[in-house]
């Protein structure tokens, strides 16, 4: 399988590579086949650590991070050729980019073997554990290699849940071949509750909310509770229901519920700012307007009784207002 998965020629490369790479499928639970792309280290592949990368979402592809963030090459705007990323993490590590959970990217599910229709953290962790076991049967030279689980965004849930499962398996003797050393999470969804609470502060102190808006939330804080932790006495998340898609649905029609949902959802998420980088300008105006509309329409399902901004957006307009 290792030789079958070896990538010999990559269309669109405009320079020579100095490392080996492999692409194929790893077995999860029966019927689940997770696509992986493994790039060996450009440093010393025989001693450098083994790193698993998981992109969040949930439902986004590890290849997205490979091609647009930390992988050895990125696509050019022509969509046909590649250029080198001189800051690739495989300068010093052997990196597995996994498309997880099943159904994401090129990962597939054989319905004749597995008709599971549920996606959740536990299933994702189990599939990833089994895929890792499978990986070490294909690449036995990485047994006992220092191993790190890494990821981003909803990886803030994937990475610790998978690491926790791996520790259980190692300690129970089911996975002795894995030398787990660490885990790393970038901009992770470690806590949706604290992300929501901190978004209010983040928004105000980066100029997204007015002073009037921010001051209005004082009545929503429990001023009688003595605590050194700001989020404990200003727990705005208590007034809303956090949807799995990041939506904030007010619990009722009270001021605190509607105002925190308005600030934490509409002002913060549904503006035309790039939520992934406050200060970044984005020049794909037409595409962005379409994307923003799709986001609003998606979240609108959960926001009954809320101001329906989605119907006010014209997808054909180039007017940012």
């Amino acid at each position, binding site marked *: 399988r290792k030789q079958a998965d070896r*990538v010999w020629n990559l*269309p669109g490369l405009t320079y020579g590579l100095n490392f080996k790479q492999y692409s194929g499928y790893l077995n999860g639970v029966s019927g689940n086949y997770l*696509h992986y*792309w493994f790039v060996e280290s450009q440093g010393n592949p025989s001693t450098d*650590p083994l790193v698993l990368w998981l992109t969040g*979402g*949930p*439902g*986004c592809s590890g290849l*997205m*991070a490979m*091609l*647009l963030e*930390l992988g050895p090459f990125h*696509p050019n*705007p022509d*969509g046909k050729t*590649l250029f080198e990323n001189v*800051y690739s993490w495989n*300068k*010093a*590590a052997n990196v597995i980019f996994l498309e997880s*959970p099943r159904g*994401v990217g*090129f990962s597939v599910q*054989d319905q004749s073997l597995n008709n599971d229709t549920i*996606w959740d*953290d*536990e299933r994702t962790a189990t599939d990833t554990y089994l895929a890792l076991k499978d990986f070490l049967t294909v690449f036995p030279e990485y047994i006992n290699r*220092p191993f790190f689980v890494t990821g*981003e965004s909803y990886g*803030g*849930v994937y990475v610790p849940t998978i690491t926790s499962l791996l520790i259980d398996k190692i300690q129970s003797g089911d996975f002795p071949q894995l030398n787990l050393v*660490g*885990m790393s*999470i*970038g*901009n*992770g*969804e*470690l*806590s*949706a*509750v*604290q*992300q*929501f*609470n901190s*978004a209010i502060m983040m928004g105000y102190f980066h100029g997204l909310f007015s002073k009037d808006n921010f001051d209005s939330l004082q009545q929503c804080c429990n001023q009688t509770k003595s605590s050194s*932790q700001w*989020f404990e006495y200003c727990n705005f998340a208590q007034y809303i229901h956090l949807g*799995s898609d990041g939506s904030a649905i007010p619990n009722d029609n009270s001021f605190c519920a509607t105002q925190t949902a308005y600030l934490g959802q509409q002002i913060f998420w549904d503006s035309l*700012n*790039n*939520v*992934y*980088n*406050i*200060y*970044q300008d984005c020049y794909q105006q037409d595409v962005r307007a379409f994307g923003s509309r799709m986001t609003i329409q998606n979240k609108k399902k959960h926001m009954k009784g809320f101001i329906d901004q989605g119907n006010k957006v014209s997808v054909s307009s180039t007017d940012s207002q």
Partner: protein
Amino acid sequence: GGLLCYGNDQAASWLNLADVRSALHVSSAAGNWEACNDTINGAYVQQHNDTTSVFQHILDSQYPLRVLIYNGDVDQACNYLGDQWFIEAFAQTNKLPVTKARADWRYMTQIAGYAKKFDNQNGFSIDLLTVKGAGHMVPTDRPGPALQMMVNFFRNQDY
């Protein structure tokens, strides 16, 4: 629907070329590549809207684990404040000693962000870092500092 400033279109264009799929041994059962699967995103059952219990399970296992939590500090989607509060609360609850006070870390001569270390001296440690000026996609926005940070984490060296 919101990853439109990051070249997903060209990534999808390239990955969906027939000769690329062939080179990558992509199954014929796989559909067109998309950066994010909205159906799965919508159907996904999020079992942890707070991962404190998962971190607690890891700590209680007494498995020697090094943890790096880093945040680009201008991301709104998963902002650094929320993760900082999470880690600080976890460390406070479990009385994890601070073994390196919060201080800047450097890339070349410039401040690349701020770092703090918690370490229970029993093999479990948490490095809490910010990456100055990076958004959600830290390796894209600050590629040099991101690579230096990760290599030093892998090698258990100062950032």
